Structures are given as C-alpha cells and as structure tokens.
C-alpha cells in the first residue's frame, strides 16, 4: 500500500495548548535539573569548562567555574557528589571473602 505525505495541520486547539504546556513543563524540568547539577556537581562543570578551546571568553568561564566550585565546596554542596562517588568506589572494591 502506498503511503501519502500530505501536510496535516493538527486540528484541535486543545492539542495545541497541551503541546505548548508540555513543552514549557519540559523546559522547567530541564532548568531545575541544570540548577541541581550546578549546585551539587560543580566539579563536573569546572572540568567540562576546562575542556573548551582556550580563548578570552573561555578563560573567563574557567575562572567563573573555579570560583563557583569554590563557593559550592565552602557551602558543603559539592560534598554530595563526592560522598556518593566514594560509596560507589567502596562497593566496587569489595572482594569475595577468602
């Protein structure tokens, strides 16, 4: 059977407003996620920014990321990721009993 590719505009206004609402909801979720990662995973942000090609803009970004990470460390937020990582390393290093 041959399939047609005719342009279809979705008819209902309800579907349209639902899509817009869901797209905004998705954006809100991503922004909250970004905020959580910025606060609790600042070490990762710092290392990601350091991987950018060096220029005047990225140099400033590196300084800002270093400063941000220092603040998060001082506030104790950066400890969360470190603690989780260490706990996982302990599990990884567990051996069978002799």
């Amino acid at each position, binding site marked *: 059977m041959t399939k047609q590719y005719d342009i279809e505009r979705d008819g209902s206004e309800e579907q349209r407003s639902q899509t817009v609402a869901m797209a905004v909801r998705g954006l*809100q979720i991503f922004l*909250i996620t970004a905020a959580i990662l910025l606060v609790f995973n600042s070490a990762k942000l710092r290392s990601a920014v350091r991987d950018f090609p060096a220029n005047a803009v990225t140099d400033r970004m590196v300084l800002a990321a270093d400063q941000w990470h220092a603040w998060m460390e001082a506030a104790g937020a950066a400890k969360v990721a470190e603690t989780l990582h260490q706990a996982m390393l302990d599990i990884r290093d567990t051996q069978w009993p002799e």
Partner: protein
Amino acid sequence: MLFPTFEFGLFFLVIYAVNWWLRDEMPARKLILLAASYFFYAQWDWRFMGLLAISSAMNYAAGMWLGPEVRPSVRKLVATLAVIANLVILGFFKYYGFFIDSLTDLLLALGIQRDLPVLEIILPVGISFFTFQGISYVVDIYRDQIKPVRSPLDLFLYISFFPQLVAGPIVRASHFLPQLNKNPQLDPMSLAYGLVLIVVGLFKKTVLAHYLAVGLVDPVFLEPSEYSTLDLIGAHYGYAVQVYLDFSAYTDIAIGVAALLGFHFKKNFDRPFGATSCAQLWQRWHISLSTFLRDYLYRWLRGDKREGRWMSYRNIFLTMVLGGLWHGAAWTFIIWGAIHGAALVVERQFKSMVKIPKGAVHWFWPALCGWFFTFHVFTLAVIYFRASSLEIANEYIRSMFSWTPGIELFTPLMLAIVAGSVAVQFLPGDTLERMAKKLIAMPVVLLGLLFGACLLVIEAIGPEGVAPFIYYQF
C-alpha cells in the same frame, strides 16, 4: 559529541527550546533540526558532512526517478544502481583496508610482491546507519510501499536526524517522513516516557556498562591467559551484558530525545535476554537492524519463489553471516554471524523434528532449556565479536575450559550487574511505560527535582570519563 556529556546537554537544551518555539513554522523547524543534525555530526569530523549530504542527495535523486509514471525496467535499473552506489560507499569506507590486506597476503602467498595503493581510511561514524536508511527509502519506493518525497529538506532530515544518526535505531522512511508533515505534539506521556528513557539509558551506559568495561571485560579480553577460569567465565557473560546495556542505552536515549522533540521511534530492544529461542532473541535484539536484514537481505535472497526447507536454512545462515560481516571486515565477525546462523538453523530443524505433546511436560522446562541454550549461544558467540583477533578468541575459549583457580576481577559488583541486568529482562515489557505513567501527575517542581537527582546520582556513581558507545564503530 556523546550523549552523556555536558556539551550534549547544552546542545539539546537549545534545540529543544527552538524546536518548540518554531512548532507552527514547519519549514523553519525542519531547517533548524537539519542544521542541528549536521552540527552534531560535524563534532566528530566536519569533512564527513559532505559524505552525508552526497548520500542524501543521491537517494533523493533516485527516489525522484522511481515515481509510478516511470517504466518498470527503468525503475528496476535505478533502484539497483542506487542500492549498489550506497553499498559501494559503505564498502569503500568499511572494507577497503581489509580488501587491500587480504589481496597483499594472497599475492605474497602466490610469490608475487606488489605495492598496492594504501590509503588511511577513517570510518565515518554512523555510515552504516545512514546508508541503511537510504537503501530502505529507495527499496520501499521501488516496492510501492511509500511515495518519493518531493521536498529535499524532508529527505535530508530523515537521513541525518541527530538522535539516530550515529548508532540507530534504523528508522524507516514510512514511519519518519509522515511525522515531518504534521505539527509536532508533546503529550504528558511522551514527555514522561522521554525523561524515563533518558535516565534509564544514562544509567545503563555511564554506570553499568562502563563499570563492566573498565573493571572486567577490557582487561580480561586483552590478556585472557592471565586470568582465572572464573574471571574468564564472568567476563564473557559480562561482555554480552555490556553490549546489551551499551547499545540499548544509546537507543533508549535516542528514542527519549526524539520523543522530547515530538518524534516517535519504535522500540529497538525488547528484553532480548529473556528470549527462550534464538529466533525470538533476534526479534527482540536491535529490532530495527533485524527487520532491516529480514526485509532487504533475506527477502532478496529468497526472491519471489516459495522456498524449500533447505533453501530457507541456507538463506537464514547467509543472512546472519552477512550481518556479521556488516559489523566489520574480520574473520571474528564472520564466525560470530556463522554461529548465530547455525544456531537458528539447528533450532528450526530441532523444532520440526521434536514435537512435545501438549501437557506432557510443564511449559516451564522447555522454556528454561530454550532460554539456557539461547543465552549461551549468544554469550559464547560474543567472544568472537569482542576479541581483537581469531587467535585471542580461540585462546579465550581454550582458557575458559581449562581450570585455573582464583577470582580477581569478577567481583560481587560485577556479578550483581550481570545477574541484575539479566533478571530485569523477565519483568513485563511495559515496565518503563508504567513508570512514566506514574510521573504524569507529579508536580513539575517535584519532577524536576527527581530528574535532577537521578542525573546527579548517575553522574556521581559512574566511573571517571565517558567511553564511546560500542556501536559507533559500526
């Protein structure tokens, strides 16, 4: 640009926002998605953007020549030439080195020494996947299953759409192209399901598959003779599970990302390690490739005639061997395909010979035997898939069957990852959908906190660095 990276997160955030902002401007939205896809591809090597464009243009032109008004003999010629051209491009990049090495060896064996032209060929990432999509587009038009697209923009976007560009799933034109001509929709279920798939995919790839790779599989496969029997047994199970986790993770994330952009892709893995027969395994493993091989290779081998039993066995076997060869130009991949082809043939023959009367035994026992056979065919064959040479694969199997005491790398964590990953394959097939349904009613702040917390935990507990996906090399 790999999915589990900061760069991809940033890239996706921008594309997500622009995609929905341009929801009602279809040509502009397609143009942005096309530009984003080429930008994504250029992050590996910008020179291959030209190859992607040439492949798309060639298939577009072939499609235009395959309209219903064209004479059947011309249609057949155009379709054949287009498929050959696609295969030549793929074959040149994938098999040139293998062909030159084999020819040099053959000439030396015959006592002839020749300096053959040696080129440093870099394999463009994703070439198999976009070539297969091009072939499926042309063949489906030739078989009158779809109509050629008039807009080159649609065809270029179909071939290059970034979520599936570099490692699949192989999306059929008949499934994708109609979606380009509808206003995209995002319902609560698609949003929640997309988020679930991304979290599950990232967990499988950056935590489970990565721990298996660095802690067990890579060191054991590098020097199999250095490890104990239990480590070897563990690593061969480990690699089978790693391939599954790695590849299914990629397609989970690809399907999730596409869903968040308003596109629907079909499932590519459906609990393959729960399969109780080899045939069932291939209906559940990399479904888009299995169905591609069935529709375009097996069907071509079979032709229009009704095939007899032995002819069907030959075609199944050849399909699997060629499927193995597609993974790479090496004897290890050919043997891997041959093992699976032989297992499918043996299983079919066995089923035609042995009929268990209904009620003679409880259903569980044949299912258990079938599962055990299927799982171990897969895990043994995967040794050839992973080993860097035939010698290492054979040495691995030899060492695995000669007892050496001790256990070093197959730690409790590795056992838990392997056993856990197999055990979850026996959960109902709609488990992730059910999880997503539970998230729909959740307030947005709570959902954001949950998604963020999941990503934070995944990021924190995974090993350092990001390993490329296994299927990028194919």
